[in-house]
Structure formats: C-alpha cells, structure tokens
C-alpha cells in the first residue's frame, strides 16, 4: 500500500521554505553533469524547469508532442500573472496573496505550498523582465498592474492580452539558449506514453516518435512531467485541441496517485456554443470583468434586443448578489450565477445559453481609447468569431471547462508517489485547492519551474544511490511491447464510430453530470455511462492507418482511451466528496441562498486515489491542517 507523506517542513509559515532550502542536500557543481533529467512538456512549467536545470549544469532531455516547444498550451493564456509586489501601494503583501489564494481555493490546499507560491511570485516578475518579457508599463516607465477575479488589490502583471504568449516565449528563449549551448537535448513531435520504473524509482520514459511511429527509449536519473491539465475530458473546453491527460494518466497507472480529480474549473467568460460542429470553446479573458458588467433581462424569455431593454428591467446578477466583489467574484461563483440565470430562462442569444457582458458604461466613463488599449484585441477576436461588434452590442458569454485543479499528487518537493517522478504546473494538484484564482496558473507554472524544482530535485539526486540504468534495461523493452500491443489493438478494431464521436459523447456525460453542478444520482449514472462508453470504444472505434507513420487518428484514439478512464475517476471522486467546495458544487450541499456548503469536519482532506485496475481505485486521505489561517465560510458578498 502506498503511504503519502507531504513532507511539509516544520516552523512558522514564513520560514518553512527558507529553512527547507537550507536543509536540503546540494549536488556538487562538478557532479551535476553526471545526472540526466528528463522534462516532458515545454509549457511554462516545463520550459522554465528545463532551462533552469540546464543552467545549473544538469544534462537535460526535453520531450514535447508539439512541433516546437513554443506551441505549448501556455501560449494561449491571455489575462496575466499574479505577484505580491505591491507596486500600486494598495495593501498587497505575500501574506495577502497567500490568503487570497488559499481562500479562493476554498481551503482545500496546503498552507505551506500556497505560501511558498506567494513568496516566490515576486522573483518570477523580476526574472521575466530580465528576459525581456514586455509587460505593460505606465508612462513613467514602471510596470502597470490590473485587478483580477477574487482579489481586491491590483497585482496582476500583463502584456496586452497575450501574457501567456510573452511569458512562454521568455521561457522558450531561455530553453532555446540552453539547446544552443548543448545542455538541453530537445526532442519535438515525441509523445511520452509510459514512465519507466526500475526498482521502484522513475528512471526514464518511453515515447512515440510521431513522425516515424518508432517507440523510443529515454533513460535518466529523474523525470519531470509538466504535461498540463485535463479539461479536454469535457471534449469542449477552452484548452487547445491536443491537450490531453495521457502522460499523467499513464504515470498514475504506474503508481503515481491522482489527487482531487473532481476539482475542475468552469470559466465564466467564454464565447457561447454556435452549434454541433463546434470543436472547442474560446475564452474571453476574465480581465474583461474589470470593466464589463454581467447582466440578463429581469423577465424570463425577454427576447428584445439588449439596447431596447431599459436599465430597470436588467438584472446585474453579480453586482446584486455579491456587492463587495461585484463583477469580480471568483470563477466558480460567477459561472454558477450565469448557469442559474439561464436555467431560469433569462439566458440571451439564439440558444438562451448566454449572459451579457456589457462595456457601455465603461466606454462612457473611461473613453474608447482606454478600453481599446486594455481589450482591443479581445474585442477584435470576439467580432471575428461571432460577427458581432462588441463596441455596439454587449458581448454574449457562457461558462466553459477551463482548468483542472486536480492532478498527480505531489509532496512539498513536487515529487509524486513514484520516487524520482516530479510533476509540475497544471499537471500536479498542488496549489489551487478546489478553485483557482485568475492569473495564478501562470504564476504556479513558473514558480514550480524556475524556483522550486531546481532546489528540490537536487535534494533528491544528492540523497539517492543510483544503479546503472541504460535504455536497454528490460523494463524499457516491456513498456515498448505494451505500447506496440496497444497500437495493434486500436488499429484492429475497425468499428463504426470515430474517436471524436465517442469523445463528444463522453464530453456530454461529463458536462451534464460531472460539470458545474453535481448530485449523487447524476454521478452514479455518469460512472455507469462512462463504463459502457469505454466498453463501446474498445469494440466499436475506427482508427485507420498504420502505426509506422504519422497517424493523427491513432494519436487521438490513445488519448481518448485514457480520458474514458479518467472521467470515471472524476465522478468517483465527486461522489465521495459529500460537500460543496470551490468548483465542486454538490446540489445536495448548499445553503438556502444557493451558496456552497463546505464540510470542514469531514472533508478537509486531499483525496488521493491509488490505481488498482480500470474502474477500481483505493482512496488515500491526506488531511489538511490549517495552522495559520482558520477556514471560514468563503464569502464574496
């Protein structure tokens, strides 16, 4: 049985990380080049980790399924990245960022991790600026900040609406520099399919060369997964089309326990669905809620044009329900408010599945120029997709799956339950509890990669005795054979449904029963439906082509096969958690006014699931102790 130890250092919250850094073992600089480290993924977490580890002198091998490290999904983040700099002098501090993040996560994360995140946030901004990341500036040349959902201070650094792109290009250039210097070996178009475990520790990975189909072996002393989140389990989400859970899921099946799988985030400001040919949903940055007002008609079924609905017949839902935070209420709360309004028949647009986000007041107050500077490209993007002009008609928005707080369980050192396997960025579960605040995923990815893993991996390497493992070790051969069998099986089914068709059906089950609002019956139904669908997949999917070639059908099928298992675990986890917290809203557990009812007595734990076999998991509970911040009812009123 797996035992979990979070390895949280003792001491005052402000001292934990400092003391821990001092107490960790160091690798002698001259010995660093004797250690090989594999980093899978080149998003913010992976690229920053790979670059920093190579700078320290380790031999780093990097894999990504993209054609270039710069395409990782982090590139799409729009809004910004948080840090506790307090440049605006509005009362921010490391402690406040810690407090906001822990509270935003509805007290379902570890204090020590969250504090460390807040603590290193400032270094991130310094680092990125030094790299030449063009953050927005004031006229005097100083950095500009904006505010974001779930916070009352302005602490978000941004670069127009392309912050993720600029941060990723910063990390990508640091990575590229190390590739040029020969310290990183970069392998693109490689999909990692298995972690190789030798004598209980992670010693490499096996990957498919997506161009030639060859299965390749990579051995190392430690492996870092920075492979992103699993929102694509919903089929329609704001994530890029290739985002998938395969790396994490295969590691899970090898012994890495999976934490809080049911904690997923539905983002309130996305473009509504246009029809059944839709392949993904587009996020409109949440920063829009700084100046846009969310409203619906007061009367259900009011089909008048927005400009014909007078002020007094409008319901500004967030301002009414949450006067303090108003349109800046956290994501889970805002998403649910939109869904409730639509369920009451007040939704707008053709489908009735949308609410307005209106800039008219802000344009009047601040002028067109200011709004254009802040959101110009978002307005353009909106018009491009919907053929409607947001300068004249309010935007229509609707919630969409966006981020997954759950992920591979890691200890304070970011190590999973497989020694030597570290997990970074969205792929781990570590810092956001049951709900992530805006602009804090970029912060976490870069914190993990630039400022945490370079220390903690050294401690592991220095403290471990390594036997020789080369890529001709029998464990590699075993994994290669397994993968070849799986490929053969997928190609031989030749059934009547496409992978996408089955994926869409899975997505509908997830959205309806494991989405924004869940209940016991729905979750139980979902488990059964997912199992049936999984069975159907293995009998009735059609994957054309061969395994010895670039084959997009085969790639997709492998990923969907994993989603069909992960989806079930999400429902199992949601069923176990008989409370509402953050993004996990159980209809049975709410206050009279519809607010989430958390149950700290029974559920102040991390649900860590150990894999037994498909459809069979064992729950391990890591209890959460709040020494410094006492959980309170999360109120944004």
């Amino acid at each position, binding site marked *: 049985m797996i035992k979990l130890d979070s390895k949280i250092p003792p001491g005052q919250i402000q001292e934990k990380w400092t003391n821990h850094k001092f107490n960790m073992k160091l690798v002698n600089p001259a010995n660093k080049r004797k250690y090989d480290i594999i980093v899978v993924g080149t998003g913010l977490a992976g690229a*920053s980790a790979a670059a920093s580890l190579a700078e320290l002198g380790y031999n780093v091998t990097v894999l990504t399924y993209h054609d*270039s490290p710069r395409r990782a999904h982090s*590139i799409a983040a729009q809004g910004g990245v948080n840090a506790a700099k307090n440049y605006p002098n509005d009362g921010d501090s490391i402690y406040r960022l810690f407090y906001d993040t822990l509270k935003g996560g509805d007290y379902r994360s570890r204090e020590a991790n969250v504090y460390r995140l807040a603590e290193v946030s400032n270094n991130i901004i310094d680092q990125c600026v030094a790299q030449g990341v063009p953050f927005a500036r004031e006229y005097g*040349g100083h950095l500009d900040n904006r505010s974001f959902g779930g916070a009352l201070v302005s602490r978000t650094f941004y670069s127009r609406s392309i912050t993720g792109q600029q941060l990723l290009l910063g990390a990508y250039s640091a990575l590229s520099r190390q590739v040029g210097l020969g310290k990183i070996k970069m392998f693109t178009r490689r999909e990692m399919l298995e972690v190789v475990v030798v004598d209980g520790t992670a010693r490499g990975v096996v990957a498919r060369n997506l*161009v030639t189909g060859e299965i390749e072996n990579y051995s190392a002393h430690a492996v870092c997964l920075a492979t992103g989140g699993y929102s694509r389990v919903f089929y329609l989400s704001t994530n890029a089309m290739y985002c998938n859970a395969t790396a994490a899921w295969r590691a899970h099946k090898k012994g890495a326990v999976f934490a809080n799988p049911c904690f997923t985030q539905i983002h309130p400001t996305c473009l509504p669905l246009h029809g059944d040919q839709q392949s993904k949903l587009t996020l409109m940055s949440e920063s829009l809620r700084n100046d846009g007002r969310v409203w619906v008609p007061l009367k259900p079924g009011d089909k008048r044009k927005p400009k014909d609905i007078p002020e007094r017949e409008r319901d500004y839902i967030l301002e009414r329900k949450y006067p303090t935070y108003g349109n800046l209420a956290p994501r889970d709360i805002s998403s649910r408010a939109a869904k409730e309004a639509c369920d009451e028949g007040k939704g707008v647009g053709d489908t009735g599945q949308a609410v307005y986000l209106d800039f008219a007041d802000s344009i009047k107050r601040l002028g067109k120029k200011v709004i254009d500077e802040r959101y110009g490209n978002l307005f353009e993007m909106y018009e491009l997709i919907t053929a409607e002009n947001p300068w004249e008609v309010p935007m229509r928005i609707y919630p969409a799956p966006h981020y997954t707080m759950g992920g591979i369980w890691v200890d304070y050192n970011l190590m999973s339950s497989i020694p030597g396997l570290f997990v970074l960025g969205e792929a781990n579960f570590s810092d956001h509890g049951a709900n992530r605040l805006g602009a804090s995923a970029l912060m976490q990815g870069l914190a993990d990669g630039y400022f945490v893993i370079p220390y903690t991996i050294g401690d592991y390497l220095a403290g471990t005795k390594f036997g020789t493992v080369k890529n001709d070790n029998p464990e590699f051969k075993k994994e290669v054979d397994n993968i070849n069998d799986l490929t053969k099986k997928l190609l031989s089914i030749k059934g009547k449904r496409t992978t996408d068709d089955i994926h869409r059906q899975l997505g509908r089950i997830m959205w309806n029963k494991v989405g924004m609002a869940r209940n016991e019956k729905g979750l139980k139904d979902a488990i059964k439906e997912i199992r049936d669908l999984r069975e159907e997949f293995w009998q009735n999917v059609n994957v054309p082509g061969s395994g010895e070639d670039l084959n997009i059908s085969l790639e997709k099928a492998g990923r969907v096969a994993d989603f069909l298992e992960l989806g079930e675990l999400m429902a199992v986890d949601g069923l176990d958690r008989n409370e509402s917290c953050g993004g996990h809203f159980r209809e049975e557990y709410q206050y009279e006014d519809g607010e989430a009812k958390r149950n700290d007595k029974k559920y102040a734990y991390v649900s860590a699931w150990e894999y037994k076999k498909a459809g069979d998991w064992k729950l391990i509970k890591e209890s959460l102790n709040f020494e410094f911040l006492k959980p309170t009812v999360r109120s944004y009123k």
Partner: protein
Amino acid sequence: MSGNMNLTLKIWRQKNANAVGGFETFNVKNISLDSSFLEMLDILNEELELKGVEPVAFEHDCREGICGACSLVINGRPHGPLDKITTCQLHMRHFKDGDIIWIEPWRAKAFPVIKDLIVDRTSFDKIIQAGGFVSVDTGGVPDANAILISKESIETATDAAACIGCGACVAACKNASAMLFVSAKVSQFAVLPQGQPERYLRVEAMVKRMDELGFGSCTNTYACEAECPKGISIRNIARMNRDYFMSKIKSENVEM
C-alpha cells in the same frame, strides 16, 4: 445546427517527406456558416475515418490564433483570404455554397513537407537557438521596476514580440525568406534595455543561422507583411538591416 453549404475541396496529399504528392478532390456537405475552416476539415476527416480512410493531416492546436501551429495555403493565400488572421480564425461565412477551395501546405525549401499539409518548421527554432534570447540565468536579477522602459518602447517591443512563429511570411515570399520572422525577434530586444549588451552579437548570429538553413534573401516585395496574421511590420526588417550593418562594423569576424 448544421448548415447548408456544400463545397468541393482540392487538398494536397503526400504520404511522407519522400513521397510524391498531389491534389485529391473531396466533397463536404451541410457546413454551417458559423463553423470555422478547421471545423469544416474536421467534418471531412470524420467522414474519412468512418470509411477507414486516413484523414487529411493538418497542424493546429489552440484554434485561437496564438500558438502558430495552423498553416494552410487556402486558394493561394497563406492563412486564407482574410488579412491579419490565422487559418484557425477563418470562418466559413467567408465562403459560399458551391465554392471550390484549394488547400496546400506552406511551400519553402526550409519547411519540408512531413505529411499532407504538415511541414517541418524546426528551422525557426534553430534560428532562435542561435541568439533569440537575452543571456540571463534564473535568479540573481534586479527588481523588475529597477529597469524602466518607456511606454513607447514597450509598445514597439510588444508589437514585434507578438509574432507567433507560424511561417506564413516565408510561405508568402517568392524567395522563401525568413526576414520578417527573424527581424521581429531582433527588434523586440533591440528596442529594450535588456537587449542592448548582446544587440549586435545577436543579430549577427541569427542572420548567419538563417542563411545556413536555406531561407532565401529579401528583395523587398512586402508579401510577408501582407500575409502576416499578427501584422508584424516590415519596419522591423529595416531595423534589423541597420543593426546587422552595425554588427559587421563592430564584429571581430569581418568577412565583408
């Protein structure tokens, strides 16, 4: 809602880098005006998969115009008929029922075809590896506000930094020149204080690598700027040329 547009597609198919490619004709039906161009190709591909035929391989990911993965020449134009957008941002409302649409990969010596519509753009990464960075290790950097940057410089730098590395500029250029792409990165750092110490070394190294990789030379036809989805300006090329000239004056390896 499915729509009512029926189209004929002439798509380049090529089994692999060494195979001879050619156009194949496909028909798609009931396409919605609100679908994107890539969603239209998804529909074709699902039909092919159901018949047990390998779908058309094309590159895409974010479908929001930011990752730079998508890359089709549509009716002779990189990223299709509209200005300043990527293929994934193109919607079917810009086509009409009965249209014949020609779809090809980027064509350039430095971007060999891998399969169907997918090309190999690693040459772009190689140019960045040669010098597209500020040499700074993690840690030990000054406070972010210790480096003051005027709003004007930051705007110019951000305009240049917005390049998504898609390669449309190369595909649009009759010489397959990568000047717009390279000049965007060179310019971002040339106008920022952080970029000054390596300013001339950088441009020299990147241009050298670009030439080695088989990209053509720039003959000022502006086709790149016209097809760039991010509106990267050819003024960046002028800036790069100036810096390159300076680098040659300053350089140790004079070979003029």
